[in-house]
C-alpha cells in the first residue's frame, strides 16, 4: 500500500493479481534502466517474486517478453507478467515486469566492489555450463540477452553451486551494460544507441564475465570508461581486459576466442560448448589494427592507428574538422598506410563540402566512416550502432539537441551513406535499414500532422509508447489502448479541446494504415475549422472501429461532440443545422464515436444544403435588384407616373362620357 499525492492509500496491482510494494525496494536487483521491488502474488502469497519498474522514459523489451515467458525451464529469470501500472509517488504510470524471485545473491555486486575470485572449474561448471543452454535457446529464437554481467547472474541456492541468468527485458537491449562488457563499437556508442545487438555481443559479454570472475572484480579497475574503450581500441579487448590477470593456458583459449574484436572471428556457442566439454581449440590470435608508419598528431596526442584516431575525432568533434579539411588526414592515410582509396575518398568529401556548421559536421561524420568503417555511426553527440539509431531517437527524444542532430543526419542522408560503405554490416540488413532511413527522410520532408520526426519515432520503434504530453505517462503502446486512456483523460477533465497533436497523429499513423489515410486527409491547419474538426472526428471514428465498435467512450464522445460546433455550423440552412446539432447532442451522450461521425458526415444533407444555399443566394440577389429598382423610382418616377396618369385620365374621361351618353340616351328615349 502506498499513499498517492492526495494522501489516500492505493494498492499497485498488475493484472489484478500481482501486488507491487514500492516501499520494499530490492537494490541488489536494480540496474541502470529499472528499479526492483518486492511483489506479492495474491493467488499464492508465499511465492517469492519481484518486479522491475522501468525508469520513466524507457520501456522494456516488449517484443521478447511473450517469448521469454514461455521459457520457464531454462536457468534464467523469466518474466511472468508485464504492463503499465499507475505509480502514485511519481504520478503517471510506469511499466512493470514481474519475475520469479530466487536468491537475491548475484555473482558480484557492481563493478566497483571486489569479491572472491572464482576458481576455473567453478566458472566452467557453475557458470558457463548453466548459461550455455540459455544462449542456445536464445540463438534458436533469434533473441539476444544483452544483459550478461556479473551483477545479473544469480545463485539459485545458498551453497552457490548453481546460477541463473538474470532478467534482460526491463530496459532497451544492452542499455544497462557497462562499457567494459560491450565490444568496441558498442562501447563507443551512446547507451541509448546500442540497438538490439547480436549473439556475438552476448558471447563477448560472457567473455568479460569470465574475466571479471577470474579477477574477482573489475579487471580494468581504476580506469575511466573512456580509458577502457581506448584500451580496447589500442591494444585489443583481450589484452586490455586480461592484462593484469594470471591466466592458465586453459582459460586463455576461451577468453581469446570470446574477446576477439572481429565479430565474425569471435567464438560461437558451439565453440564454447566444445571447449567446455574438453575439446581443445586453436587459440585465436588477437587482431590489432594496422599501425601507421608515422603518427599523426591530433588534440596534442599522437595516434598510430586508424581506429584510435577515429575514436579521438568522435570525442573531440569540433577539432576534427581542421584535421580533415587541411588535407592532413588524407595525406596521413596515403603516406602512412599507402591507402590511396581512403585518401581520395576523404579528399572528395572535403572538395564537395561547404563551409557551414552543418557541412562541417557532415564532413566529419563521413570522414569517420572512411577512417574506421567498423566503428559506430557518429554525428556530433550521436554515437550509435546504425541499427540502434531508431531506438536512440526514441530514448533521447526529449533531448532537443539530439533531435536536431537526428534531423540533420536524416536531411543529409548520412545513415544511408554509412550503410553504403563496405564493412558496416550484412547486405540484407543494410538494405532493410536503408529503406527505413529513406522512409524517415520522407516523413521528415512532410511536416503535416501525422508525418515529421514524430512519425519516424513511432515507425522505427513499434513498441514505443505515445509521447504526447496528454498521455505520455500512460504507456499507450498499442492503438487499442489509446481510446480508453483518452476516455479516462476526458472524464477527468484533463483532456481539453486539443485531442490530437503531432505525437498522437504520428503514433496512430504508424500503427494503422487506415488511420494514416484519415490523418493524411486532414486539411492544412487554420484553413477550415469545420473540415479540421471533421477530419479529427474521422480519425477517432476509425480508432473506435479498430478498437471494436461495441466499446463505448461517453466522456470522449461528449468532448468531441462539444467541439463539433464548427462542423454543423458549416451547414448554411439553419433548420438543418439545428437538426444536426440536436442529433449531435443526442449521440454525444451515448459514447459512440462512429455514430457521432455518421451524424456529422451526412453527405446527402451537405449536398442538399449547398444546392439550396446557391438557390437562396440567387433569390436574394433577385430580390435585392427589385428593391433597388423600386427605391430608384421604378414605379413612382415622374416619367412613369406621367405616362400612367395620361392613360388613367383618358380612361376616366372615357368612363364618365360613356356614363353620360348612356344617361342621356335613357332620358332621350323616355
Amino acid at each position, binding site marked *: 500500500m502506498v499513499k498517492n499525492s492526495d494522501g489516500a492509500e492505493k494498492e499497485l496491482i498488475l493484472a489484478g493479481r500481482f501486488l507491487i510494494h514500492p516501499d520494499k525496494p530490492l537494490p541488489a536487483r536494480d540496474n541502470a534502466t529499472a528499479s526492483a521491488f518486492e511483489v506479492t502474488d495474491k493467488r499464492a502469497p508465499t511465492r517469492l517474486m519481484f518486479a522491475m519498474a522501468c525508469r520513466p522514459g524507457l520501456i522494456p523489451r516488449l517484443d521478447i517478453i511473450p517469448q521469454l515467458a514461455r521459457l520457464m525451464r531454462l536457468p534464467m529469470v523469466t518474466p511472468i507478467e508485464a504492463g503499465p501500472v499507475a505509480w502514485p509517488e511519481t504520478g503517471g504510470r510506469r511499466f512493470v515486469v514481474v519475475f520469479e524471485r530466487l536468491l537475491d545473491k548475484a555473482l558480484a555486486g557492481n563493478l566497483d566492489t571486489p569479491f572472491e575470485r572464482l576458481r576455473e572449474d567453478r566458472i566452467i561448471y557453475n557458470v558457463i555450463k548453466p548459461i550455455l543452454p540459455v544462449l542456445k535457446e536464445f540463438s534458436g529464437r533469434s533473441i539476444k540477452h544483452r544483459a550478461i554481467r556479473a551483477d545479473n547472474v544469480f545463485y539459485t541456492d545458498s551453497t552457490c553451486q548453481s546460477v541463473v541468468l538474470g532478467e534482460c527485458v526491463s530496459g532497451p537491449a544492452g542499455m544497462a551494460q557497462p562499457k567494459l562488457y560491450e565490444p568496441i563499437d558498442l562501447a563507443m556508442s551512446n547507451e541509448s544507441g546500442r540497438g538490439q545487438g547480436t549473439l556475438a555481443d552476448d558471447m563477448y559479454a560472457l567473455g568479460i564475465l569470465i574475466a571479471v570472475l577470474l579477477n574477482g572484480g573489475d579487471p580494468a579497475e581504476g580506469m575511466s570508461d573512456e580509458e577502457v574503450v581506448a584500451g580496447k581500441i589500442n591494444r585489443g579487448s583481450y589484452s586490455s581486459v586480461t592484462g593484469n590477470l594470471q591466466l592458465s593456458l586453459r582459460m586463455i583459449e576461451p577468453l581469446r576466442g570470446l574477446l576477439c574484436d572481429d565479430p565474425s572471428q569471435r567464438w560461437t556457442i558451439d565453440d564454447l560448448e566444445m571447449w567446455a566439454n574438453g575439446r581443445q581449440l586453436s587459440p585465436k590470435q588477437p587482431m590489432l589494427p594496422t599501425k601507421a608508419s608515422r603518427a599523426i598528431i591530433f588534440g596534442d596526442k599522437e595516434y598510430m592507428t586508424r581506429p584510435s584516431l577515429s575514436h579521438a575525432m568522435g570525442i573531440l568533434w569540433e577539432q576534427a574538422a581542421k584535421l580533415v579539411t587541411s588535407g592532413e588526414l588524407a595525406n596521413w592515410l596515403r603516406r602512412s598506410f599507402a591507402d590511396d582509396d581512403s585518401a581520395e575518398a576523404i579528399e572528395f568529401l572535403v572538395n564537395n563540402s561547404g563551409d557551414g556548421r552543418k557541412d562541417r559536421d557532415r564532413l566529419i561524420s563521413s570522414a569517420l566512416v572512411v577512417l574506421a568503417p567498423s566503428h559506430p555511426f557518429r554525428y556530433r553527440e550521436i554515437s550509435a550502432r546504425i541499427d540502434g539509431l531508431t531506438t536512440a531517437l526514441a530514448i533521447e527524444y526529449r533531448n532537443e539537441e539530439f533531435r536536431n542532430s537526428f534531423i540533420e543526419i536524416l536531411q543529409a542522408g548520412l545513415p544511408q551513406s554509412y550503410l553504403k560503405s563496405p564493412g558496416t554490416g550484412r547486405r540484407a540488413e543494410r538494405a532493410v535499414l536503408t529503406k527505413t532511413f529513406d522512409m524517415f527522410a520522407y516523413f521528415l520532408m512532410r511536416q503535416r500532422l501525422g508525418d515529421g520526426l514524430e512519425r519516424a519515432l513511432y515507425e522505427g520503434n513499434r513498441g514505443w509508447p505515445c509521447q504526447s504530453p496528454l498521455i505520455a505517462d500512460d504507456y499507450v503502446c498499442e492503438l487499442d489502448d489509446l481510446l480508453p486512456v483518452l476516455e479516462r483523460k476526458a472524464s477527468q477533465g484533463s483532456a481539453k479541446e486539443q485531442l490530437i497533436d503531432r505525437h498522437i497523429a504520428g503514433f496512430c499513423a504508424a500503427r494503422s494504415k487506415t488511420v494514416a489515410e484519415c490523418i493524411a486527409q486532414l486539411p492544412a491547419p487554420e484553413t477550415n475549422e469545420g473540415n479540421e474538426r471533421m477530419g479529427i472526428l474521422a480519425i477517432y471514428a476509425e480508432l473506435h472501429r479498430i478498437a471494436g465498435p461495441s466499446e463505448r467512450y461517453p466522456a470522449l464522445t461528449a468532448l468531441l461532440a462539444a467541439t463539433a460546433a464548427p462542423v454543423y455550423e458549416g451547414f448554411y440552412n*439553419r433548420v438543418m443545422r439545428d437538426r444536426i446539432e440536436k442529433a449531435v447532442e443526442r449521440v454525444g451522450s451515448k459514447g459512440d464515436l462512429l455514430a457521432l461521425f455518421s451524424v456529422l458526415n451526412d453527405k446527402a444533407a451537405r449536398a442538399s444544403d449547398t444546392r439550396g444555399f446557391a438557390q437562396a443566394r440567387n433569390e436574394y440577389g433577385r*430580390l435585392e435588384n427589385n*428593391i433597388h429598382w423600386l427605391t430608384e423610382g421604378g414605379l413612382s418616377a415622374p416619367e412613369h407616373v406621367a405616362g400612367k396618369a395620361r392613360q388613367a385620365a383618358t380612361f376616366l374621361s372615357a368612363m364618365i362620357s360613356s356614363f353620360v351618353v348612356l344617361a342621356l340616351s335613357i332620358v332621350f328615349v323616355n
Partner: protein
Amino acid sequence: MTKERSQGQTQDTPRKASGGRSIVTGILLLPVVAVLFPTCVVLLAGMAPSIVAYFVDRTQGKYLAITVALMNFCGNLPGLTRLWQEGQSLEAGMRLAADPLHWLVSYGAAGGGWIIYLTVPPILSVYYSSISAKRIDDLKRKQAQLIDTWGSEVVPGDFAESSEKIIRP
C-alpha cells in the same frame, strides 16, 4: 448631299401620305357636312376647347386632347339633342348659339376633362409611392426570411452593405 436629300425625302413621304388621307377624308365628309350643316356648325363651335387641346397637346397619343374631347363631346350632347328636336335648322342652331347655358355646359364639360387630366398625375404619384413602399417592405421581408434560414452568408458580396441595413431593424 445625296444622303441628306434621301433622308429628307423619307421624312416628307409620311407627311404627304397623311395630308393625302386628310383630303380624302374631307372629300368623303363633305356630303355629311352638307346634310348635317347646323349640327356641324354647333359641334365645331362647341368642340373648340378640344381643338385647342389637340394643338396644345405635344404628347404621343394625344391623351390630353382625347380626355378633353370626350368630356367636351358629352357637354355638347344636350345642345345637339335640343337642335335635333327642333328640326336641325339654322334658326334652331342660332338660338342654341345664343343660349349661354349651352356654352356653359359644353365648355364646362371640356374644363372638367382638363381638370381630370391635371389632377390624376399627383393622385397616381401618391398611389405609386405607397405601392412602392409596400412592395419594398415585402421584398425586404422575404430577404430577411432568407437570411433567417440561410444566414448572412446568403447575401452576395455586392449587396452585403445593403443587407446590413435590412438586418438592423
